């Protein structure tokens, strides 16, 4: 009996099991946590981080790094709103934003892969450049949307669940599939494990990197559009610091910064842990300054538990 529980916790799905236990605990002890409304609120609050974590997972798995996601989200939100207003068509606005996001990603990818500039520096640079562009294009101001139909992206519901949550779920499934069941996913993981060996085995490492960053940019646009719809305007200051939240959600979910290791379930759990921590602290009315401290310790605890688990596996 106890051994089978042990096996469960320390097994491959251990992180998930720990998460489910923690979730159960929180549900039982925190009032108002396990209500439909709060669950939907919680899920909506993790949409931005969750959406971007999907592609950040690929980026990290390939031993890269993207700090420009926050700026890109803000930028694409701005573009979506401004292009919608300019063309009078929401559809065109969205298309333009997706193209803009992918372009930023492409730029990152080309600079990193072809000019061989360190990913940290490159994306730190684009982070600034893109934020600057967002600010310049709007003169630093929030831009309202002319056509209220734009709000429907975030407000509309299907089976009682808001669209952004469906989008998030769909992306989790798609990218989970891509990671585990496609050549693209496997090549990404191989590149992270040993880039030179992968190149010699015929993986076009440069192309892969460019694709990964472009995809990342495209997904930033998706997040930016949803965010703009949710806050009913394009805001050049939105999503600052997002990069660190996303990266820590990924690392929390077991993605290795040294590349080569990533799972979609892990990332989902990582995203949810961060979201729940925030949600519960607010439900429990923990004072803002103490929230910093608590957040820090939750991060440590979550990784510690996971580490104990994996070293226990090693020891068996």
């Amino acid at each position, binding site marked *: 009996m106890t051994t089978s529980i042990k096996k469960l916790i320390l097994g491959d799905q251990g992180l998930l099991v720990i998460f489910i236990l923690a979730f159960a605990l929180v549900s039982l002890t925190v009032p108002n946590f396990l209500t439909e409304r709060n669950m939907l609120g919680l899920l909506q609050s993790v949409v931005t981080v969750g959406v971007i974590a999907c592609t950040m997972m690929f980026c990290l798995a390939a031993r890269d790094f993207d700090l420009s996601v926050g700026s890109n989200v803000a930028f694409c939100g701005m573009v979506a709103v401004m292009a919608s207003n300019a063309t009078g068509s929401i559809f065109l606005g969205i298309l333009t934003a997706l193209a803009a996001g992918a372009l930023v990603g492409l730029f990152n990818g080309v600079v990193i892969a072809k000019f061989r500039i360190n990913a940290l520096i490159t994306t730190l640079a684009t982070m600034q450049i893109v934020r600057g562009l967002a600010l310049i294009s709007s003169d630093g101001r929030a831009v309202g949307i002319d056509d209220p139909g734009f709000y429907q992206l975030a407000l509309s519901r299907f089976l009682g669940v808001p669209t952004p949550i469906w989008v998030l779920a769909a992306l989790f499934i798609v990218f989970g599939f891509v990671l585990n*069941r*496609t*050549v*693209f996913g*496997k*090549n990404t*993981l*191989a590149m*992270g*494990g*040993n880039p*030179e*060996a*992968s*190149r*010699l*085995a*015929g*993986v*076009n490492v440069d192309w892969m990197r460019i694709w990964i960053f472009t995809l990342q940019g495209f997904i930033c646009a998706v997040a930016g559009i949803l965010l703009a719809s949710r806050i009913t305007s394009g805001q050049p200051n939105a999503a600052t610091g997002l990069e660190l939240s996303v990266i820590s959600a990924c690392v929390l979910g077991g993605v*290795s910064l040294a*590349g*080569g*290791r990533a799972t979609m379930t892990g990332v989902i759990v990582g995203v949810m842990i961060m979201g729940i921590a925030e949600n519960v602290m607010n439900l429990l009315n923990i004072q803002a300054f103490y929230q910093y401290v608590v957040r820090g310790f939750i991060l440590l605890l979550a990784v510690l538990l996971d580490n104990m688990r994996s070293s226990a*596996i*090693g020891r*068996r």
Partner: protein
Amino acid sequence: MSAYLEFSGISKSYPGVKALSDVSFGVRKGAVHGLMGENGAGKSTLIRILSGDAAADEGTVRLDGETQHYQSTRDAFDAGVVVIHQELQLVPGLTVAENLCLGRFPATGGVIGFSAMYEDVRRKLELAGISVDPTRKVAELSIGERQMVEIAKAVMLDARVIALDEPTSSLSSRESEILFSLIDRLREDGRVILYISHRLDEVFRLCDSLTVLRDGRLAAHHETIKGVTRDQIVSEMVGREISDIWGWRSRPVGAVELEVDSVHGEKLPVPASFEARRGEILGFFGLIGAGRSELLRMISGADPRAGGHVRVGGVEIASGQPAEAIRKGVVLCSEDRKFDGIIQGRSLEENILISSRRHLTRFGVLDLRQEGQVAETFLKKLRVRTPSRKQDIINLSGGNQQKVILCRWLSEKGVRVLLVDEPTRGIDVGAKSEIYDILYQLAEEGMAIVVISSELPEVMGICDRILVMCEGRISAEIERADFNEQSILAAALPDEVTAASVG
């Protein structure tokens, strides 16, 4: 004389693997003790336990009758044990001397005395006959030179027990000789030397006594190597007889498949040209640094070429990228498995299928069932010792990793030219003959095979034709009928050396 170093009842398990079970034996002072066994038999694990890098589940290590309780490699070192590991353990950004002194820099108040350090290292290297400049950065050294630096660690330290795990696997015979005379000296000095190798010649050349491991157990222990025969050791290792390890058989040779025309590049300025035919096994021999690897790397697209043409079956490989070469049927299994071969953190299955899976996919989507089958097939074929195909490759023994990389290229379909650089590096005798057999089969099916080997008996044993390289040029071409150790070596040695050794 009683044993100075004693293993008693050593057992060690990893998930799904019993690496060592109840191994006991002893080694005298002033003896070179051979440790042999198939890939995955547990040799490196035993050495790791000796060096404090791994802890035995059961059993003890005794030195001079004293039971050792290491907590770390540092403790083992303090007890007088130095280990030269199977995989190179050097820091590329530091100089040779810094690498040799790492962990024990000569310092006063934490400040290193550099001039004294370089002086000391230079002297000791000279004494040992190792000609590497101590001020060079390790990153600038060739793989052979690195191996010599690794070996130099043994002479730097005044160790009572020195264990060497396959030290010659990337050395040519010339450098091996330097190592051997070094070991002779250490033996005379009364040290205890544990020597792991898959090369029987070396074992007979060096060892006084011998232990054979099989499947983690003690298969045989010979207090003296006198009277022990090769065949006996082989059968103790693999549990069966191997009559002719090379097993060369003649086969028809077809049309030209690979044309290499004036290929040259940064590291190989002299244009090189040669051809390989369908069904032919072409060998490349040369000393370390002769440029064989560089040539094959340029052919396969691993390194850029500055000029020249490579054609397979008349089709030009233009881009000089590995991806193109592979798709046109030219694959290279490279010599440095750690940096160019294994993909750390990924399973054996993924390591095998990274290239060949493209034949099994539909619109980029994998067929996991077929992938599993392919992996299983080749793992079995090369008898890779592992609990499962899902195992992380980093957990395999060195020789088994090498086999997995071979699986990668054997599983590739539509290969017309197979380039293999030191294919049997670190591979046990049993598996070697199986690999040779696979090469013959592939050649019989019409593949052109190019083999680099630094083991002269190997090139002579399995090749139909040998090209000898010397200082970046192809210096001789010899047909199987004319194979002769003397002439091949003469072509491999630079002129001045030949003159000196003849004189």
